[in-house]
């Protein structure tokens, strides 16, 4: 039987994979996908906590629904920026987009 800690460990692993991907990948599309992984890791943690800690309340579920909605909006915005960058630079390599450095 899977307990709370198993869900949280799974959530941590996915979050870490997402974080590492977001920080190390050069392709913006991959980075966006990694960010989605981190969202969903958080979602798993929310659902698990709700299920095991406060089973009578719906706070966690509501939060997760909001996150899914916002993440969708996020992704749409992110992809629009990616397209804009690609049109400008003919590339989706994020290391080239460093014109603001000091």
């Amino acid at each position, binding site marked *: 039987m899977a307990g709370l800690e198993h869900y949280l460990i799974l959530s941590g692993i996915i979050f870490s994979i997402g974080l590492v991907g*977001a*920080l*190390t990948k050069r392709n913006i599309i991959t980075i966006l996908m990694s960010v989605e992984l981190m969202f969903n890791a958080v979602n798993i943690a929310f659902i698990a906590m709700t299920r095991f800690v406060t089973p009578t309340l719906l706070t966690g579920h509501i939060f997760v629904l909001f996150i899914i909605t916002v993440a969708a909006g996020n992704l749409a915005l992110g992809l629009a920026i990616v397209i804009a960058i690609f049109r400008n630079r003919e590339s989706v390599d*994020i*290391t080239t987009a*460093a014109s603001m450095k*000091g």
Partner: protein
Amino acid sequence: MPEFASWLIFLLPLLSFVLIVGLRPFVGAEWRGAGVITIVSILAAFALALTALAATIGNDAHDLGYRPHDWLTIGPLVIRVGLVMDSLTAVMVVVVTGVSLLVQIYSTEYMRGDKGYVRYFAYMSLFTASMLGLVMASNLVFLYMFWELVGLSSYLLIGFWGQGKAAEEHPRAGDAAKKAFIVTRLGDVGFLAAIVWAYVATGTLEIAEIHAMVAAGAFAGVGVTWLALGIFAGAVGKSGQFPLHVWLPDAMEGPTPVSALIHAATMVAAGVFLVARLFPIFEASEGAMTTVAWIGGGTAIFAASMALVSNDIKRVLAYSTISQLGYMMLALGMGAVGPAIFHLVVHAFFKALLFMGAGSVHHTAHTYDMRFMGGLRRPMPWTFATMLVAGVALIGVFPLSGFWSKDSVLHAASINGLIGGAEALYWIAVLAAGLTGFYVFRMLFMTFAGEYRGGAEAEATAESGAAAGPPPRRRLHESPWIMVAPLAVLAVPVLFAGLADLPWDLFGFGAFAMTGFLTGHVETFSTSVAAVSSAAGALGIVVAYSMYVQGLLSPSVLGQRLRPLHTLLVNRYYLDHLYEGVVVRHVLIRVLGLTAEVIEGQFIERAVNGVALIGRNVGRIPVAMQNGQVQAYGAMISIGIVLILAGFWIWG
């Protein structure tokens, strides 16, 4: 006399200075009005000064008793400004304004056509204002302020010809000004330290309060001696006493009326005045009195000996001034304030006259070198007559003013056994009186007797080394009346000022009226002292006559015979060499300069560069971090969060 009128005495010349400086942009550099403004303001100050003197004489306490005003209040420290108008100040303001007035009148002619005419009168007004403030100040800070202002205006006036086109004719003026400023500043350091010490020791800066504490014995012992010696250091610098006398002969580079006013009559007397003003402090310390007397007596003979061989008429007078100031210090050291100030006053008259006479001679001969003068008695009868009167008074011949003042000084030296070596000092002073007789008449004979020796043209020929042809004859003439008139006016007090301090009551205002007025102490007179000093002076005159008129004893032969002594005197005891060659060049430049250079290069510079280097290298780290890669920023944030959480987990 209301206090406001006393303030006006020094505010009027100050106003003249401000007015001239303010008008300077709107008038030409040779605007004659500057002289008029100065003369009018000083004339008014002179009138007020005479009123003040009359009021002080009429006052039973001889002190108009003004209260000081609060000026600055900083916590418990209250700095006050105030005037004192007692007998000493009243006499000084009359002398300063009187001599200054005549010098200004003389200057309008002497400085005519000078490119710095307006500037000259601005400085002269500033000087007169500072000097008057100095003699009237009632507390040490106020006094010190004017003391330094006097030094500043002296610097400006010595170096008056030290810039622009005039500097080509007077190449040493700038250096002389710097020398005067720096050398007197050495003494001023002592004075400033004494002021600080006075405040620490007594808690007040009011001169009268310090005097009261010393008189009551509340402030005594070695502290008073140090206070007196510090003050005396300032006096030594300003009054050109040994060993800080070296600036005064060089100060002759300034315009001659400046020498007459500042370096003969007033500023150099400020040191004597200072000691007299703070006399109760000196009186409380036998060590300080002995120092003052010996420095004064030593300077009197030391400077007189250098006057014997100088060929520059102004330098002879400068050494004579130093010597006479030595007499005044000697009298002060002997406790005789009255005779010292009496001699100061009389000396101011005849020495100012002698300097203005030298300027008048220069007006015709265009040189100050007496070797190229001679025979000026006939073309310049007025200058000759007045200078003769002043010279005879300087020697102290009966019955001129100098006789009474010098003999009151010598008499004080002969009776006062309070300090060590008083007997020796008396004979030193008598010997100096003999030397005075010689150098004054040497100067008068070389200038006025015999044949004219060509003036500036002959000097130029001699300097270029060309064959000495017959000098081109220029028409020698008496100076314009506006230059001669001040000489004649000054001759009056030179002749008759002695009447103010006769040993007998001839005019119904008492014997020793002036010294009595100054100190409340009645002097005595000794015929034998007067006879001895007169004999010494007469002997000096006879020797000068036999050498420079009769030719019984050739000066050059005598110089050959006494070659070591002559060389020593001509080189001014090598003191200038010592100061410039050894002290400045070696001690200051080599030792201090090199030490400073090492400290600067090895420590200070390294420390400064090190701090800068640390900043630069530390700065490189955030520069490298800010690389524009958002992912790197994200990584840092993530790592930071992890570290913070780990910290909470471990320590929280």
